[in-house]
């Protein structure tokens, strides 16, 4: 008889019972609907134990690698320790600000040292706390390569968190974060043909991590990164990305300016929104992995367009939080 361990308590699974049914029988509240592995309402995360393959069927590769599974069709052979997805978001860490640097007029780079090493994937995000204020920021750093956690914070004129970070927080200060969270990271997929990353403003942060992560993992197919801003002064990391482009022939960087006429464009830059430039460069994206971050409307539109142009939904990665543009 196998056991299910949830929130520190152990439950015996009855013959042929699914993990979901076992939890429900024991009075545990789990949201669910179809009970046939289709609707994904009940998805939870395994922290220890073997998940039968059918319980991960049709989840994203990134989700599978995080141990996500469908309790409603899961009948494990052995014991499983599981957590609700919400619980994964509550683990807090203390970090120390070790660098504060403005990348342009509106974007601040913070580098943070974590008291205990934080296990994360490039492109995931964390929640940052200031008293009752909580905001989500993507990690721009690459584990194993960058020693510090790196955040890109856009100053929003009325943003309580971003102004506090830009004006009041000093090097040496201690901050609280929770995470890592999110599924916006690179994970190899069979038959992948390329990687398309589209971001606006500080939405470059996770993409800077994801692109370097894919390259570090030996990704040899084309990688296209389109980063958009209103004008050249609002871009950042242009030199860094150009250097990356020189070092990796399969990587192409397209800086996109939405408020600059084609005739006024600086050399090597593109006119228009980054999503439009992206699909002009790459009109068919079947079997491509797509990474999106930035203005919510741009992300939504691009997600839909990429899907209609052939990308599979399981290959489109965009975290659901509203990025720093409104914080």
């Amino acid at each position, binding site marked *: 008889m196998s056991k299910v361990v949830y929130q520190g308590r152990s439950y015996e699974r009855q013959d042929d019972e699914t993990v979901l049914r076992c939890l429900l029988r024991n009075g545990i509240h789990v949201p669910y609907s*179809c009970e*046939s592995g*289709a609707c994904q309402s009940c998805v939870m995360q395994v922290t220890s134990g073997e998940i039968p393959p059918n319980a991960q069927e049709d989840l994203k590769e990134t989700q599978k690698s995080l141990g996500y599974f469908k309790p409603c069709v899961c009948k494990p052979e052995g014991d499983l320790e599981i957590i609700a997805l919400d619980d994964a978001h509550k683990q807090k860490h203390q970090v120390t600000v070790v660098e504060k640097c403005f990348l342009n007029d509106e974007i601040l780079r913070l580098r943070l040292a974590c008291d205990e090493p934080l296990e994360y994937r490039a492109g995931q995000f964390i929640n940052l706390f200031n008293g009752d204020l909580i905001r989500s920021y993507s990690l721009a750093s690459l584990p194993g390569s960058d020693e510090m956690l790196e955040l890109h914070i856009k100053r929003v004129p009325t943003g309580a968190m971003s102004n506090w970070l830009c004006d009041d927080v000093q090097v040496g200060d201690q901050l609280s974060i929770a995470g890592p969270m999110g599924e916006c990271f690179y994970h190899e997929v069979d038959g992948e043909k390329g990687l398309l990353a589209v971001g606006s403003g500080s939405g470059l942060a996770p993409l800077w991590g994801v692109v370097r992560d894919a390259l570090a993992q030996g990704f040899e197919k084309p990688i296209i990164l389109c980063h958009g801003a209103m004008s050249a002064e609002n871009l950042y990391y242009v030199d860094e990305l150009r250097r990356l482009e020189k070092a990796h022939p399969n990587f192409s960087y397209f800086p996109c300016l939405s408020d600059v006429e084609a005739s006024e464009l600086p050399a090597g830059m593109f006119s228009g929104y980054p999503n439009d430039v992206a699909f002009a460069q790459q009109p068919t994206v079947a079997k491509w992995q797509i990474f999106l971050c930035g203005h919510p409307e741009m992300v939504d539109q691009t997600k839909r367009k990429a899907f209609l142009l052939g990308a599979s939904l399981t290959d*489109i990665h965009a975290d659901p939080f509203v990025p720093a543009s409104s914080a």
Partner: protein
Amino acid sequence: MSQSVYDRIGGEAAVNAAVDLFYRKVLADDRINGFFADTDMEKQAAKQKAFLTMALGGPNNYTGEDMRKGHAHLVERGLNDSHFDAVMENLGATLKELGVPDDLIGEAAAIAESTRNDVLGK
């Protein structure tokens, strides 16, 4: 009882292949894509999968009442027979594209058709 269409075409793997195809057709169809303008695409794809699983006679626990509740807000926005017909058309086209034989498509269409009154709140 004979095997369901779901089992005969290959079960969950076949449905997974059908979901993207079907949802892409629905989103590209101007007769009905307005109903999907503000939906979360992942959640919607999961619902499309549940729908396809049901239409193919696969395992599901949906009742007529679920169908009614789940679509009531769309009926308020004007969901009617013409939209249901469009979805049926996309379902047929998807299964055809996947090489499902006509008689099985007919069976799937009959199951989907049986939800019409509940979906449209009649």
